[in-house]
């Protein structure tokens, strides 16, 4: 049953070192504030799951929070590489990072299977790709009716899923809309779920058949307006494309990255603090 609480409390109470954690959001609604809070609290040995580990995971990986990454596309969308992710994979900095690599279809199906309490996902996939050669978790099963060979991959069942959404009501029911990605499945596949929201309202006023996560399917709801920044929340904020471009030089060097994280994340109390310091540093470079 959802508790309405601070993000600090939610991360500290619900995410343990060693957990499997999925922070989801497909370009839209990426829970950046929660990612920062995980960094601030120095969580360790996490198995991070995410279809598109973009800046949010570049930061978590570069800060040494991750032991393993399960993913399907790791880049800075529209810009290029994730330098911290690459440094971890290519050079083992700050430490070795185990990777389990899938296609988007595989990951999406694995979340669906997790939400459905199935041990594996069944799909037509990976045919002709070298991915099954490097990922022993891509196997093949036979249809008991036609004999066809189909791909099978383990379900994703995170200990904790974290998402950002537009609205919650005062009881903790959550509404999101627009580009939904795999968030509903990621929440329902997880043992615990943290949702940061743009606003908390008296009544959701959800249209028919919209994406609602009832309060009893969520562990914590945290009011963090703008908490997807530099990603966006449709109807509330715009994507800051400049930030994505500016991230590229920041993350290129270990020193530059570390200094940036120390000033903007470790040196701030919360996401509001981060936004204030970021505004200052953006003024400096402008």
């Amino acid at each position, binding site marked *: 049953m959802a508790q309405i609480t601070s993000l600090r409390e939610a991360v500290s109470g619900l995410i343990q070192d060693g957990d499997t954690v999925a922070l989801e959001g497909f370009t839209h609604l990426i829970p950046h504030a929660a990612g920062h809070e995980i960094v601030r609290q120095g969580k360790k040995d996490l198995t991070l799951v995410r279809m598109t580990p973009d800046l949010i995971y570049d930061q978590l990986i570069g800060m040494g929070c991750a032991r393993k990454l399960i993913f399907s596309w790791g880049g800075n969308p529209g810009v290029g590489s994730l330098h911290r992710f690459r440094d971890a994979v290519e050079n083992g900095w700050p430490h070795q990072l185990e990777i389990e690599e899938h296609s988007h279809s595989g990951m999406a199906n694995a979340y669906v299977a997790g939400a459905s309490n199935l041990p594996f996902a069944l799909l037509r996939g990976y045919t002709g790709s070298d991915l099954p050669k490097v990922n022993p978790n891509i196997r093949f099963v036979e249809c008991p009716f036609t004999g066809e060979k189909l791909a099978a991959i383990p379900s994703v069942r995170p200990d904790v899923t974290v998402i950002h959404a537009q609205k919650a009501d005062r009881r903790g029911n959550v509404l999101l809309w627009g580009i939904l990605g*795999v968030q509903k499945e990621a929440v329902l596949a997880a043992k615990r779920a943290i949702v940061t929201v743009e606003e908390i309202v008296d009544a959701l006023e959800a249209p028919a058949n919209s994406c609602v996560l009832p309060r009893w399917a969520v562990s914590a709801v945290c009011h963090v307006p703008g908490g997807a920044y530099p990603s966006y929340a449709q109807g509330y904020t715009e994507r800051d*494309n400049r930030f994505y471009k500016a991230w590229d030089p920041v993350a290129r060097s270990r020193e530059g990255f570390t200094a940036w994280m120390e000033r903007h994340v470790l040196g701030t109390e919360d996401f509001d603090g981060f936004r204030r310091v970021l505004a200052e540093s953006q003024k400096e470079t402008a």
Partner: protein
Amino acid sequence: MTTPASPTLDFTATEIMTVAASRLLRDDTVCFVGIGLPSTAANLARLTHAPDVVLIYESGPIGAKPTVLPLSIGDGELALTADTVVSTPEIFRYWLQGGRIDVGFLGAAQVDRFANINTTVIGAYDSPKVRLPGAGGAPEIASQAKEVFIVLKQSTKAFVGKLPFITSAGYLDGGDARERAGIPGKGPTAVITDLGIMTPDPVTRELTLTSVHPGVTVDQVREATGWDLKVSPDLKTTAAPEPQELAALRDLQARTAKAHGQSGGGEG
């Protein structure tokens, strides 16, 4: 803006690549669109000769009609202009795997002579020289769309004889290897670059240069290819962009730059 394809021409190499790619999309086609060049080409088709082309993005929008190019695969503009937005699992399960996509429009880091795609690593998988972003939606788009167009700039780094890693299947080892592997879609029927257009030989499935863009020589294309590129005896010259095509593309990019402060997107 890239350099002009030729000093005497009034369009750039990227522009003719985009226009040539867009022309391959027919009206009413259902197209699964990758971000970046494929998205630019697909939207140009929609704004010119194929107003009813249906654009599907893996983030969930079905029938997106963006007025400016998306910089990310999940831009709000895609959601706001779509006929509907479904979940990402539904896109991959009901629409792509369901067999409802006519054309998969992909970019690539590298392709080989059989139009296989690498977007995973340069070097060995376990100790990569360059770690690329990875598969994304491409392996299943490449296998399940009824046909595939690949658009990327031509260079010996990108067009390599043997890929270090096959992320997404083209024709595998060529011939009927793709069919033997049980892959349903027809595979890549065109690779469009800034220099020309390659299509698979009907029998060997080896990519063959079938069209060079105006002002480009066959030797230029061969020099930019990492294997001994076959050239069609029936080689054509790509028709230069029509003024209305160029105008539509430049308008689109100007609107995009104005909205986003940059022109439209790379991979991802």
